[in-house]
């Protein structure tokens, strides 16, 4: 059973042009006791949502009729949390989050739900969930402790470009297509801002190859309409310390499958 609830506090986006980002609700809120007033505490992905909203805000400042905006959807599959749907919706409204709609479904149905909702990117803290959606061709990224909870002045997206060395799992033509579509949309969004003072920063990182791998990846991104702001070529150097300085909100692997460990 799938049900969708529109958020009446928020203007619905133009479905033709918006970039639909579905986020697992358990990543956005700490859904524990829910507090006395029924409002949830902020979860790991809360700053990420704020960063997405900041981009929208700036896009509308540039052009009040802009239709290339992030369309944020909260996905809930946990049936226990579905019973808390009232708290979820009221918490969202309480924080003034720019969530267009809430989708509630079972674990079996939710991927179908994502596909039907034309979701361009799915974000979750659940590795298993992200792996499943990826395999079905939905561009997905795992939110973990390096990501998501970074300061929200700027949305920071990291492309990991090592598919040359480590081909991604289950790269189907469909998943490659969705990855390219999202990249192109992101690239277009980025172009609407100047080089400095952008609410969106696109970074590229290659872990294993040398400078030519990274140079090649920069060119590939260019061909997709993405002009990267930052580039990091590690050539085998440990990525942990670099990531903790880079602080992306989420990582997309070039193969656009699940980022391997």
């Amino acid at each position: 059973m799938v049900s969708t609830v529109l958020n009446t506090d928020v203007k619905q986006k133009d479905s033709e042009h918006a970039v639909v980002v579905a986020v697992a609700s358990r990543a956005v809120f700490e859904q524990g006791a829910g507090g006395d007033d029924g409002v949830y505490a902020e979860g790991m992905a809360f700053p990420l949502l704020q960063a997405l909203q900041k981009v929208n805000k700036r896009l509308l400042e540039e052009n009040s009729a802009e239709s290339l905006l992030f369309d944020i959807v909260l996905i809930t599959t946990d049936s226990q949390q579905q019973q808390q749907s009232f708290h979820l919706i009221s918490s969202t409204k309480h924080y003034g989050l720019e969530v267009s709609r809430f989708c509630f479904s079972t674990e079996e149905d939710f991927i179908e739900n994502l596909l039907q909702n034309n979701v361009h990117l799915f974000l979750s803290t659940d590795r298993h969930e992200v792996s499943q959606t990826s395999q079905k061709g939905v561009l997905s990224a795992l939110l973990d402790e390096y990501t998501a909870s970074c300061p929200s002045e700027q949305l920071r997206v990291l492309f990991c470009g090592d598919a040359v060395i480590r081909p991604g799992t289950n790269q189907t033509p469909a998943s490659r297509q969705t990855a390219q579509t999202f990249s192109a949309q992101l690239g277009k969004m980025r172009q609407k801002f100047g080089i400095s003072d952008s609410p969106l920063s696109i970074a590229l990182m290659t872990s294993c190859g040398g400078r030519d791998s990274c140079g090649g990846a920069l060119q590939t991104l260019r061909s997709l309409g993405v002009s990267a702001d930052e580039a990091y070529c590690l050539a085998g150097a440990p990525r942990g310390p670099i990531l903790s300085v880079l602080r992306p909100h989420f990582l997309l692997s070039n193969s656009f499958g699940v980022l391997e460990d």
Partner: protein
Amino acid sequence: MSEMKPSDVPAAEDSSEEKDWAAAKAFFDNLKSNKPRPPKPRFAVTIAVSSRTLFNMVAERKIYEEEGLEKYVAFQVEHENEPLKPGPAFPFVKALMNVNCRLRELYPDSEELFDIVLMTNNHAQVGVRLINSINHYDLTIERFCMTGGKSPIGYLEAYMTNLYLSKDSEKVTEAIEAGIAAATMFMPETENQLSDTQLRVAFDGDAVLFSDESEIIVKQHGLDTFFEHEKQFENKPLAQGPLKCFLEALGKLQRKFYAKNERMNCPIRTFLVTARSAASSGARVLKTLRSWGLEIDEALFLAGAPKGPLLRQIKPHIFFDDQMFHIEGAKDLGTIAAHVPYGIGQKYNRGKLIEQPAKKE
């Protein structure tokens, strides 16, 4: 001051680090070209160079300053297939590459090598021209950070940098304050002809290898007090200065050549070029070095004479000094000089106390 490298790594990170390392090794081993693979950072002597020290970007910098960032980036992209000309750190980098060749011959499996990293806050689109230029000269630089405007200091630490060279004195100061050896590079108008078989590095003593404690005495109490003080404390080692660890790293690599009987043919040579005099204040310096277990190949005591002419004879690939007066003197006579913005020397210009402008917010 900066320690060499951390030797303990948390176990959880170890396995994913090892995976990345193994994958990189496999990548380079499988390349058709004979490109040497970059060393494991933990064991390497990591030198981070900025884009303006590696390449001559004076004309481009002018565009940035006069026409703004957008025009600058557009210009770089338009010209990205034109290689840039060499900058002040270029000869130094070539000399490092030569040392690596010699080390690889003697120790084919060792990771104790120089690792040269390009550390720039340039935009990644400018980076394409930088990569093309590196390719043009076939420099062994496989690691880089292009931060798109953000401060590179965090990345210096993440890369376990042993020495950072930049043209931006603010970044250099920030690095030194973070405990990383760093210096601001200056290009002479005409360069001396430098060795292509031996890396030659010259250091000033006080406030570079050593702390500025003695310099404070000179500035505040004069030379006579300084001489008396140094004689009195001849046997007390001076405290460390910001470049001590870099000298130590060079010494470690030198000993690898000595171990293989290559002392007479060692491709690294170090020089101390100090205004101290041998008779009165030199002993303390040599004893300090000895107490640290460090060797310096040649110690030159100038007793206050200008450093420029002597440096022109030595022909180092780089000369580190904390006082701009000496940097200018070196530069005027063709030596590539690097200013270390540390210690009391920064508050003085040619012996006079500088009026401090209000600190920029």
